[in-house]
């Protein structure tokens, strides 16, 4: 248990580094999505620095676990963990969204090492994950495919097509994670287009559902373990989060969905992330 406490502490420290990288990148880029990056940071940090099997020096290693960022607009978070994980030098993060950079505004699997799928058009990542999971089953591979979706994103009908598919083909090697930060571009999800009852919906689609506090490292790790052990059906982790988590003036602010901080805001944010 001492060991676990240390793991959690290290991951929390890592998450702070990742949040700082996100703020810095977005400031340098001058545009991008703060809120959804920060709400998913703890989950994605736990995945990349504790849970996933991968080899940065061999990105195509066939046995690796796959992570699909279905909510592609949060790609700065993915770039930050990939750089921290050793896929490419951290110094390159400041080229985000700039011409000639391998760090596109939304994930491009052909340009960035470690990016598993090109996403950005919402609602498509879970289908891609289904295909990879199905291929893995056919080849008797033991990898797991993780897909991170936004709570606004699941308003896309294709998500539910994929949810049906994963259940029908018993894809227990898929774990969907929903960043339930309760906000989308135009406002709160419950005002724009309600997605509740969320747990019942996924249950009705045949999925195992685990609900957690998406900022509690211990709960995140437990959920990922449980999800991996589930047999015969896919698992969805509904992670209750705070959009903009970690930066006081961004937290729960719909305006910070698709905005980058200016110099002053970035400095203030960084001062809170120490």
């Amino acid at each position: 248990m001492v060991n676990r406490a240390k793991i959690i502490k290290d991951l929390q420290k890592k998450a702070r580094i990742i949040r700082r990288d996100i703020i810095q990148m977005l400031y340098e880029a001058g545009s991008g999505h703060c809120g959804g990056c920060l709400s998913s940071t703890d989950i994605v940090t736990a995945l990349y620095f504790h849970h996933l099997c991968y080899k940065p020096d061999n990105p195509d290693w066939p046995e690796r676990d796959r992570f699909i960022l279905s909510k592609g607009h949060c790609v700065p978070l993915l770039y930050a963990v990939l750089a921290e994980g050793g896929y490419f030098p951290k110094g390159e993060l400041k080229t985000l969204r700039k011409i000639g950079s391998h760090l596109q505004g939304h994930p491009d699997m052909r340009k960035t090492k470690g990016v598993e799928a090109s996403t950005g058009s919402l609602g498509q990542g879970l289908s891609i994950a289904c295909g990879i999971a199905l291929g893995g089953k056919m080849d008797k591979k033991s990898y797991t495919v993780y897909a991170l979706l936004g709570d606004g994103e699941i308003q896309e009908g294709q998500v539910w097509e994929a949810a049906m598919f994963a259940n029908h083909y018993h894809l227990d090697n898929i774990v969907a994670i929903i960043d339930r930060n309760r906000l989308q571009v135009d406002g709160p999800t419950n005002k724009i287009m309600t997605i509740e009852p969320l747990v019942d919906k996924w249950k009705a689609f045949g999925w195992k559902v685990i609900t957690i506090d998406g900022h509690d490292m211990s709960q995140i790790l437990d959920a990922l373990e449980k999800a991996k052990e589930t047999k015969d059906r896919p698992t969805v982790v509904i992670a209750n989060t705070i959009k903009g988590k970690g930066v006081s003036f961004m937290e729960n602010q719909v305006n910070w969905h698709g905005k980058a901080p200016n110099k002053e805001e970035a400095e203030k944010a960084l001062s809170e992330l120490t």
Partner: protein
Amino acid sequence: MKSTRDAYGEALVELGKSNKNVVVLDADVSKATRTKKFAEQFPGRFFNCGCAEQNMMGVAAGLSLTGKIPFASTFAVFATCRALDQVRNTIAYPRLNVKIVATHGGITVGADGPSHQSLEDMAIMRAIPNMIVIVPADAIETKKAVKESVKYEGPIYIRLGRAEVPIVTNKDSPFAIGEANVIQEGDDITIIACGIMVAVSLEAAQLLEKEGIKAKVVNMHTIKPIDEDLIIKVARETKAIVVAEEHNIIGGLGSAVAEILCNKIPTPFEQVGMRDTFAESGKPEELLAKHGLTANTIVDVARKVLKSLKGCLIIEKKS
């Protein structure tokens, strides 16, 4: 007479035997697309996605990322319109090795009517970067196209038909993606066609022959990348070009040919195709007749364009 979809069903089974990586996806129309044949032979490599074309394209993308060669099939209108964003962003943009083979292209779908007829699929697929577009002329060419598609690593759209169509190629006819075939020589006018209109063009060429007009006929089975060299060559060798396609005259083969002609070698040009209108329910032959996708229309158009050239300088310039 044989439908290209029937040939597709057979080709898939043959491919399935020789290539273990071939997997097939369908969206609840496997009887009609003929992928059912593959499903029966290789149940472990066939996945019905139900009525969910968008998800099917995403699953195909994912399967390709594991080294499989997915064939995703449904009707042309659903493959290219319903699932367009998925095809564009998830398959074409990352250049994934997915083969989209759609049946029920054109108006020869017949009785099901405009909701199931596809007039714009070639235009749509052609406009997407990285996408290759093939429209085989008959059953024999379909088999070749399907088998060749596996040798190319990247996204391909193959448009097939529902109706039975005449055989115009034979097993020795060459087929290479992007290389069109001259299937009849002539030096007055060139008819460029794809799909079922190749047979119709050959018929038109025979009618023209009776009037002393020698028509060259080109089977342009690859719409993209279009065979630019051959278009320039036939534009030099003949006085005018007529394009015939079972597709809207906006954006399809006619447009592709016109782009080359306008840019490289301005040439008198006419189109035979759907005149920017939806069709209706009816028998394939009735619909083709009503919308002028016939040998007689091609003959009329050919005559007209040649007549308009009388005394025109452009003829001299070319030789």
